[in-house]
């Protein structure tokens, strides 16, 4: 009986991992500063699912939303731990290192600039921007994934665009 239950949980988790790990890593990569951090975030999200199988809702869409929310919450935990200022400063230093290193590729510079600007946003706002602007997810779907209302998503988008525009213009004028 117990063995059967364990096997069922393992099968479910394996299916969950196979179905969502790519999409989750892509999102984590956009929400985090580097690849290793993104991989850690994905691992931690699936580990939470492994430790609390009952917390993961049934169905493809609900379980995807649960994983996305868990990932964003993990980002928020890290964000709080590190502190927004130290994090943004690190991103800017990296950006400057790349720019001063000789002949950086234009794409790399753009990436570093965008990453530095995104790093200044709060995790939830960053998730809204990434999901909507980079992944092309509709506002309603973003709201469902993050478990917030559409009004909240639109408000985050508005504020994020304003902040990003300000930050990117500042970078351009340097």
């Amino acid at each position: 009986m117990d063995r059967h239950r364990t096997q069922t949980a393992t099968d479910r988790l394996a299916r969950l991992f196979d179905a969502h790990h790519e999409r989750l890593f892509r999102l984590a990569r956009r929400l985090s500063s580097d690849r290793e951090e993104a991989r850690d975030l994905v691992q931690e999200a699936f580990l939470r699912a492994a430790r609390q199988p009952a917390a993961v809702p049934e169905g493809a869409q609900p379980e995807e939303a649960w994983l996305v929310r868990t990932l964003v919450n993990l980002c928020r935990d890290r964000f709080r731990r590190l502190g927004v200022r130290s994090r943004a400063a690190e991103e800017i230093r990296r950006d400057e290192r790349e720019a001063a290193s000789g002949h950086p590729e234009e794409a790399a510079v753009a990436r570093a600039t965008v990453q530095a600007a995104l790093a200044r946003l709060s995790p939830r706002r960053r998730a809204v921007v990434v999901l909507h602007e980079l992944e092309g997810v509709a506002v309603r779907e973003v709201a469902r994934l993050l478990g917030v209302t559409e009004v909240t998503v639109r408000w985050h988008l508005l504020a994020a665009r304003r902040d990003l525009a300000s930050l990117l213009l500042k970078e351009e004028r340097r």
Partner: protein
Amino acid sequence: MNADLNHDRLRRILQQGDPAAGDPGLTAEEVHTLRRTVLTAIPEPRPRRAWLPALAAGTAVLIVLALAAALGPWRRPAAPRAEVQVAADPAPAAPSVPPAVSAAPAITIPPPAPGVPVKSSRPALRRPVRALRTLPVRPNDAPVLTASLPVREIQFSTPGGTRVIWELSAKDIR
């Protein structure tokens, strides 16, 4: 300032600097490692103990029985009941005054004269009769005193109008 960077241009900048754009994603080896880590993190189910609820119920029943045996009414020794005489209303025609501690002669109240009005003995107008104070009995004198003590009577009436008469004899003194 932000008017220079409209929504479309901001989106284009964000997409050009997409942090996940140049990332190939997780390698097969990384996926394998991650999958194994996640699947081995499923906690082992605890062995079910079917006898545990029965044991808890049995223990509870035993505790209740022990408490009942220790504190139940059938364990108490029957307390000696004091003989109490309660005078019914109306009060007796000639209330007797308890005798003093010493061997004073009993006071008898003469019956009222024919022309004198008799006070009403309604409960509302009655006052409780004070009990006579008795001297403390010293242990050494107790046998002698108790042997010579007459039967004494204490009367009082409750606010409801019930008259209570206590008869105290030598056998009540301990």
